[in-house]
């Protein structure tokens, strides 16, 4: 298991280290101003010397992201279930779901702050708005792809709509939902930070402040922390996926 983890993690780690080393050399050699592009060593220095405030900001952003994801996944699944109920529902309301994908969060973040006030509520709303569509789209695809023979089987045994939903359709759609969540997680981080630009708090404010004070190294450090958050969420969804779906596919040691 650890051998497998190492085999998966080593290649991207190696490319990362090589890329960083190359960037450091180039920036030094070309004497690029730290205001334009900071050296990786300067970014690392900022990331560690300001670790306290950065971690506190990261925690605030992370809380908003998680709350936003909770909101968008529950609303998203409920919406998908409603849309899957009939072709009419889907035709009538799906275009409005698409609205959430195309609306630029930068434009509506100020509106969210007007409606929810400054602070985490607006940030959570921003995170939820940008992350809800992948959940809806993917879960809907899953619900609509349920094996018709299984649906027949349920009908044959007189299953109620509720029983069919909980025992067949939602479990069937789970892999699709998890794929949607994987996408939603990264988007939620973006949404939260943009929300923070207007509503305050977290890494968003750190980034704005650092820009204002010509601290491009700190900007990159903050972006680095945000990326770690995105990665952690991605890995968490991947882990949840593997756990939830571990019986769905033949394992490497399974008999045939």
């Amino acid at each position: 298991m650890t051998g497998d983890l190492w085999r998966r993690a080593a290649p991207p780690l190696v490319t990362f280290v090589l890329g960083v080393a190359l960037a450091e050399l180039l920036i030094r050699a070309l004497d690029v101003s730290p205001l334009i592009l900071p050296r990786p060593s300067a970014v690392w220095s900022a990331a560690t010397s300001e670790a306290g405030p950065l971690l506190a900001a990261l925690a605030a952003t992370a809380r908003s992201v998680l709350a936003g994801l909770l909101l968008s996944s529950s609303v998203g699944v409920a919406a998908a279930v409603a849309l899957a109920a009939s072709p009419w529902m889907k035709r009538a309301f799906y275009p409005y779901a698409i609205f959430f994908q195309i609306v630029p969060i930068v434009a509506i973040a100020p509106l969210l702050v007007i409606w929810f006030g400054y602070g985490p509520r607006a940030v959570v709303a921003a995170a939820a708005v940008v992350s809800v569509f992948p959940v809806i789209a993917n879960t809907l695809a899953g619900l609509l792809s349920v094996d018709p023979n299984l649906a027949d089987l349920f009908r044959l045994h007189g299953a109620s709509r509720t029983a069919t939903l909980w025992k067949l359709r939602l479990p069937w759609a789970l892999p699709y939902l998890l794929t949607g969540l994987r996408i939603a997680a990264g988007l939620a981080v973006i949404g939260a930070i943009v929300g923070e630009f207007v509503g305050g708090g977290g890494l968003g404010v750190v980034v704005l402040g650092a820009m204002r004070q010509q601290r491009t190294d700190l900007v990159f450090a903050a972006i680095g922390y945000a990326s770690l958050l995105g990665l952690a969420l991605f890995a968490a969804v991947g882990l949840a996926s593997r756990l939830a779906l571990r019986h769905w596919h033949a394992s490497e040691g399974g008999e045939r």
Partner: protein
Amino acid sequence: MQLSGNEAIALEGVHRTFRSEAGGEVPALAGIDLAVARGDFVALLGPSGSGKSTLLRLVAGLDQPQRGVVRRDGSRLAMVFQDAHLLPWRDVLANVSLPLELLGRDAATRRPLAEAAVARVGLADAARRYPAELSGGMRMRASLARALVTEPRLLLLDEPFAALDELTRMSLDDELRRLWREAGLTVLFVTHSIAEAAYLAERVVVLSRRPARIVLDHRVALPAERSAALRAEPAFAREVGVLQDALRAGAAA
């Protein structure tokens, strides 16, 4: 239900037509009259796409005819499909329990019934395994167990063994006949394999190609005890020949 005394199923003048994608009409069944006696083992034989599955679904109540009447005697029915169609997130035992769950039986009641059904199809050792870990044959057995767990009186099967290899198929054929006799089921079995129809059934109904009509309704002249050796006997070949001719006639018409 106006069925005569010992009838389990009766179809009168059944027509079923589908609308095609192009907007035209595709008639699947054109006037089917069929009665199945309780306890009988009937095979529905026909060319591919001849409406056999449609007929089965009409009997199951999953579909309605455009014209004509489908009657059943109200006894509990179960269905087995071409693929096992097990829920991949449940183990064998939980899959087999599903119909009981849907009927509202509590866990204490479900468990012994499910275990018994699993044992009956010879899967007791695999009860805790998941479908992804099972072979095709084992999955089909699980599907059979699921069909039997509610102790149905009527069993509908739609080419259940078509996707399996020859040996597995033959062994499952034998199991199915054994279950039929032990439980006193009425079985309606759809297949496009002439040999399988002859081997398994007491009565074979041959359908023409679309729009399907009954071409032949034949009582199989083979002993009640069927075994693998039977397949080598001349009597078997004779029955196969009869069915083959009817099938050819129906396909050409």
